[in-house]
């Protein structure tokens, strides 16, 4: 049992960090502007196809391609903010949900029209490493390392740079931030861009591990929802821990039950946490 459990748990943690990265994008946007970004899934899918296109088209190493995808994600996010989110930033929350969902419909529609819904995969290998009973593939290790690196960069940005401090100020109290001279519209646009970029990077990393279609984004979007609720909406560190937790659940459950029970347990956990501790397991600042 332990011999089977240990490798799945290690795999679970490695993938969990990547899930956590995607969820961080969602939670950053929510923390700053109180909008649950329902275009999150299509941004993840865009990241997947970005890495795939650069790899198959230009032969670019997927872990280098992810950097380009991050930049594209930032631009795409700022655009989505300008077109769809800016006008509803002070409207009731239904408007934000529906506006971002409309963006999702448009992107999914374009994606299924032009990219078809066939399965793709990034055929790239870095060998595998064995340590005692545990064997992990090189790509999984590299993807997890990338995700950890991006998380570190995000924290450095949020805590060490002026722009990052402005984001935190607006998240804390937008009116007060405006009073001390922070231009909140720019900050909101940048936050939305960053959140989208994180989703795209996570998508790009997932693409190196599993086959995917245009519609795969939706699955990972739902995982992000579960994670942000576990970690507390608006709390990036909570998202990372929630991601690892979800990875562990995904690793451990199939040992004891059929794999199809994983979503039942995930969503039951999700609803339970919302009911018992809506502020998340970490008891976030909100």
């Amino acid at each position, binding site marked *: 049992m332990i011999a089977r459990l240990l490798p799945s748990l290690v795999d679970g943690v490695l993938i969990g960090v990547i899930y956590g990265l995607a969820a961080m994008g969602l939670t950053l946007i*929510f923390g700053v502007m109180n909008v649950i970004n329902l275009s999150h899934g299509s941004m993840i899918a865009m990241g997947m196809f970005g890495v795939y296109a650069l790899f198959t088209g230009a032969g670019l190493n997927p872990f280098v391609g992810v950097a380009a995808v991050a930049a594209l994600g930032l631009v795409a996010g700022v655009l989505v903010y300008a077109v769809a989110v800016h006008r509803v930033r002070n409207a009731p929350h239904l408007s934000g949900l529906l506006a971002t969902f409309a963006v999702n419909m*448009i992107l999914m529609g374009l994606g299924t029209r032009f990219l078809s819904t066939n399965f793709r995969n990034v055929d790239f290998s870095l060998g595998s490493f064995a340590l005692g009973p545990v064997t992990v593939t090189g790509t999984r290790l590299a993807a997890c390392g990338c995700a950890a690196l991006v998380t570190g960069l995000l924290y450095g940005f949020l805590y060490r740079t002026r722009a990052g401090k402005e984001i935190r100020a607006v998240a804390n109290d937008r009116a007060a931030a405006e009073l001390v001279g922070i231009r909140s519209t720019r900050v909101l646009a940048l936050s939305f861009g960053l959140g989208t970029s994180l989703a795209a990077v996570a998508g790009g990393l997932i693409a190196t591990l599993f086959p995917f279609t245009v519609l795969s984004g939706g699955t990972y979007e739902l995982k992000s*929802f579960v994670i942000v609720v576990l970690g507390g909406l608006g709390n990036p560190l909570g998202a990372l821990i929630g991601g690892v937790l979800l990875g562990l659940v995904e690793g451990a459950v199939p040992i004891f039950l059929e794999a199809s029970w994983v979503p039942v347990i995930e*969503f039951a956990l999700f609803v339970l946490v919302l*009911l018992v501790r809506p502020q998340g397991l970490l008891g976030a600042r909100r």
Partner: protein
Amino acid sequence: MRWWSRFGLWLSLAIVVGAALLPAISGSASTREAVFTVLVSVALASSLNMLLGYAGYVSFGHIVFFGLGGYIGFYAVSVLGWHLSAAVLAGAAASGLLALLLGMSILRLRGSYFALATIGINEAMKALATNLKAFGGSTGMEMHLRAYQPYGGAARALWITYWALCGVTVLAVVASFLVKRSRFGLALLTIREDEDAAAVLGVDATRAKTLAYVLSAVFPGAVGALYFFKSASIEPGGAFRLHFSIELLVMIMLGGQGTLLGPILGAVAYQKLRSALLTSAAFRDVQLVVAGVLLLAIVLFVPAGAVGWLRSRSRTLHRALE
């Protein structure tokens, strides 16, 4: 009460009944199928509007009640051999019960948290249905043709199902009207504007919200039972389709949330548009894109929806449209 004080109700009923009678006049099965789809949307959108439009609670996973009612009704007819009418009542009751249980807990959550919770519940139910062998697991269940015998064969059974759906739709519209004009409806509108203030004014917010949630779940339960009886098969992906849930929100926004006529017009317009796009060569592949652009335009520029916009134009329209 003068006759025009109920003009909004008569207008809404006239539209629903008028549409419902179309297939009876032409007698064609294809018209019936088209109207069936529209009426399903009208009934579901009107029910969801009681929660979303009146109480201001955004249920993103409302389709869970349609799916649950469908599964319970299907099981009752095909496995237990119940009569359709009993199965429809069972579907409605099961959905109402689930809403009652959930309502007592998740309605404590506000805003985005509630919306997220409803998505989670729908996904949890879908995953559960996928795993329950008694309900056919991931491949779902099929109805045996024998099940249509007591209704005089499959062809007649389809007509019976159609008329039953018309009945449920009319009931949902009438219920929407009665709720809106009642003291209970006023309590819901107060909760929508400011829940804390409503509580201070003596509104029992928990009870009102739970009752609205149950009411908005009962009709989708009945519709689900009818829908899957007619389609003769049910599987988790089709029963708990989150996308349909969100289409309902689009219909309500299109017509105007919180109005009686809005969800009806919105549902009819959306389904008309959708079938027009699906059958046109130029737009068939991009119907999702067109629907997305339309939704975005409404949310950004006409958040009150068509009926809400019309009502704000003149006093006469404000009084005439409910």
